[in-house]
């Protein structure tokens, strides 16, 4: 089958405007692929997958008794984003990160937004991610969310929406870099002919972002990446980033608080640590302040963090804005703090704790996606359209029992990208997670992770639920 004969069907397709009509920018790729002799594309697909295996680009699946790592399925047909589209997304993301950061400073400081009644106080106090010990905290330069991986989706019309903000410890950027490395050897000619923005400089930007947190009087600062350890699902990424930045990868047991500073245990004694890129959830960071059963963190960390003797990226407490109820208020935050309209809108969201919304949600469960306010990774979710009546009844009960913990959104007909299935091409739904760094200024990394739901018709793109990934090509013109 020729890619040119691909039928995008009744969805917005990222590569095709209609049957046999590649979008601008995609036509070159389509022609190139259709010029391959039979079997060649399959061969390249397998070679790409083998290369990722060789590189050890794997993720761990929780609850898998084998403890096995898997290679994340990778599809070599890329998603292409035009320069104009990207320009708007970039502005939109900068606006959003700016606002979320203002919100975090406010909420752990004066709480003006609550006093002015823009967000009900109980929404914040009941949010699991709101950390009382962080009230009054003043992170360096007033920056809270240094690294963000915002999830974007498009609907049937091709309009963009923010689905989730992911302000805690977003993962996936290593796949962006490794996928690209593999793609360059998969389609070298296409890369020569298309103006695709490179992605390789992410580690340099990340390191700059982290170094920005060091007080200027420290001439030789120590930056580390803190990982929960080899059994974490994103462990590969932690090692990858530490290696690419040339900094130490540490586990909680390598660290200790001594002489009023955070120190790491080395073969030559203790060494002071100045900045931690932590890939550990807030709850686990310090067992003396948060979860006492955490073996992954460092007892006493908070005590040196608070006076600024060590900097954390992201700051503690950012999870409050990941609460899906708080998410629903982001457009109002944009208007409140900046007096602007959001450049990229939210997905319309029903708040189950509001009487009227709840009634609507319960009556339309078969059309909605229901999400727990504090879960991520595709867990704690009901896809109303495909769920069984029992599952829906179960969720209805959960909503009634704890309305604050649930939101609902219309089932979006996510955009699709042609994907190699067997010997041919079929459309599969995708989302996009661009990575945003906040150091001296806000930087949006050109591209991001395109996750694809490989199961026919599925809208769930998470790696733990049968999702795969694709390279994302952002064009410069």
């Amino acid at each position, binding site marked *: 089958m020729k890619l040119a004969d691909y039928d995008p069907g009744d969805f917005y397709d990222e590569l095709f405007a209609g049957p046999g009509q590649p979008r601008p920018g995609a036509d070159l790729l389509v022609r190139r692929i259709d010029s391959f002799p039979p079997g060649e594309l399959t061969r390249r697909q397998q070679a790409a997958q083998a290369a990722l*295996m060789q590189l050890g680009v794997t993720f761990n699946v929780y609850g898998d008794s084998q403890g096995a790592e898997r290679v994340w399925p990778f599809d070599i047909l890329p998603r292409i984003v035009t320069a104009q589209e990207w320009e708007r997304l970039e502005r939109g993301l900068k606006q959003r990160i700016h606002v979320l950061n203002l919100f975090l400073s406010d909420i752990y400081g004066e709480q003006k937004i609550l006093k002015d009644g823009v967000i009900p106080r109980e929404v914040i106090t009941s949010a699991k991610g709101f950390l009382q010990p962080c009230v009054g905290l003043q992170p360096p330069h007033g920056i809270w969310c240094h690294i963000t991986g915002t999830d974007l989706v498009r609907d049937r019309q091709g309009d963009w929406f923010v689905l989730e903000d992911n302000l805690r410890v977003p993962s996936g950027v290593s796949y962006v870099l490794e996928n690209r490395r593999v793609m360059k050897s998969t389609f070298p000619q296409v890369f020569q002919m298309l103006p695709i923005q490179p992605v390789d400089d992410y580690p340099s930007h990340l390191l700059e972002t982290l170094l920005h947190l060091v007080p200027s009087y420290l001439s030789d600062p120590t930056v580390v990446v803190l990982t929960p350890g080899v059994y974490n699902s994103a462990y590969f990424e932690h090692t990858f980033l530490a290696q690419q930045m040339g900094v130490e990868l540490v586990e909680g047991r390598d660290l200790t608080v001594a002489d009023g500073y955070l120190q790491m245990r*080395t073969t030559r004694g203790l060494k002071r640590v100045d900045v931690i890129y932590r890939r550990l959830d807030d709850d686990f960071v310090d067992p003396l302040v948060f979860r006492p059963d955490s073996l992954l963190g460092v007892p006493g960390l908070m005590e040196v963090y608070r006076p600024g003797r060590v900097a954390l990226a992201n700051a503690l407490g950012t999870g409050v804005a990941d609460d899906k109820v708080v998410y629903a208020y982001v457009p109002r935050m944009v208007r409140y703090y900046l007096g602007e309209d959001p450049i990229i809108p939210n997905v319309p969201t029903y708040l189950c704790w509001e009487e009227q919304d709840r009634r609507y949600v319960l009556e339309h469960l078969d059309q909605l996606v229901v999400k727990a306010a504090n879960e991520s990774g595709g867990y704690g979710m009901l896809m109303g359209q495909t769920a069984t009546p029992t599952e829906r009844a179960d969720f209805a009960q959960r909503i009634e029992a704890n309305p604050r913990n649930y939101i609902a959104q219309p089932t979006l007909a996510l955009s699709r990208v042609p994907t190699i299935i067997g010997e041919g091409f079929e459309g599969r739904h995708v989302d996009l997670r661009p990575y945003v760094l906040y150091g001296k200024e806000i930087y949006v990394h050109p591209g991001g992770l395109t996750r694809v739901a490989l199961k026919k018709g599925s809208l769930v793109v998470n790696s733990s639920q049968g999702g795969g990934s694709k390279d994302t090509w952002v064009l410069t013109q």
Partner: protein
Amino acid sequence: MLSRVADAIYWLNRYIERAENVARFVDVNITLTLDLPVATQAQSQGSPLVLELQWEPLVLVTGDLNLFHQRYGTATSQQVIEFLTFDRDYPNSILSCLCAARENARSIREILSTEVWQEVNSFYHLVQEAAGRPQDLDLNHFFLQVKRASHTFAGVMDATMTRGEAWHFGQMGRFLERADKTSRILDVKYFILLPSVQFVGTALDEVQWMALLKSASAYEMYRKQGGHRITPQGVAKFLVLSREFPRSIHFCLTQVEESLRRITGTPAGDWRWPVERTIGRLRSDLDYQIIDDLIQAGLHEYIDGLQRNLNAFDQEVFKTFFSLQSVA
């Protein structure tokens, strides 16, 4: 560098070296049994005696004979091979070594060059894949691949890693493991083979000694060092005292000490840590040793003492570098 990281790279190298050694002596033994007319006869008469004679020493070399007997009973070729290559519950089988090596490598990926990581990774997949289909495996080819992968690993380390602390901890692990294995091979063969008076001086005897050299990859190099006949004494001298052969105990200990000094910065002839004293005494003793004295005093006793000292050294490395106590 981080203590945990130093520990991991040390063990990464030890495990890879261990896997290679196991592969080498299992392989040599398989080839050897094919050459033994005695074995063939005994086998056809249904006597397990000679088979045992051939395979049990192999387990003895690992120092885990008791464990083997508990799990498998008497030693047959098939059981010994299974035990030493693919037994997941035996921590020193080739498969377990590779799992442990990779686990260590995974925990320090950011320290290793990408090439080193890839090598460990594909080595691991090679062994995993073979373990999944033991029935239709060409063992000979498999052991060859294992040896080659270990050599490639060492080569890639050599060609891509800076000679910093990480490198030296790795070297220390590799050469300590190698010294230990060479001494065990020598010990077991020497004392299993030599007392069996009926074999001494026969063609079989020579075949056995050649096998011993081969299991330390030493046969060709032994021959080349000056046309010596293969004698028990000559073999012992070569494997213990050679200053040039990279698997001899003396050579290995010299490397261990050299790397240790690079890590601590202590000049030669001096010591600051007990760990330096232990290795310095072991190595300098061999500097001035002659094989006649060693054999007269008892090679077995010497090797016994050496192994105790190597263990003590390993413990001291752990105490000195890996187990820094919190002072908070």
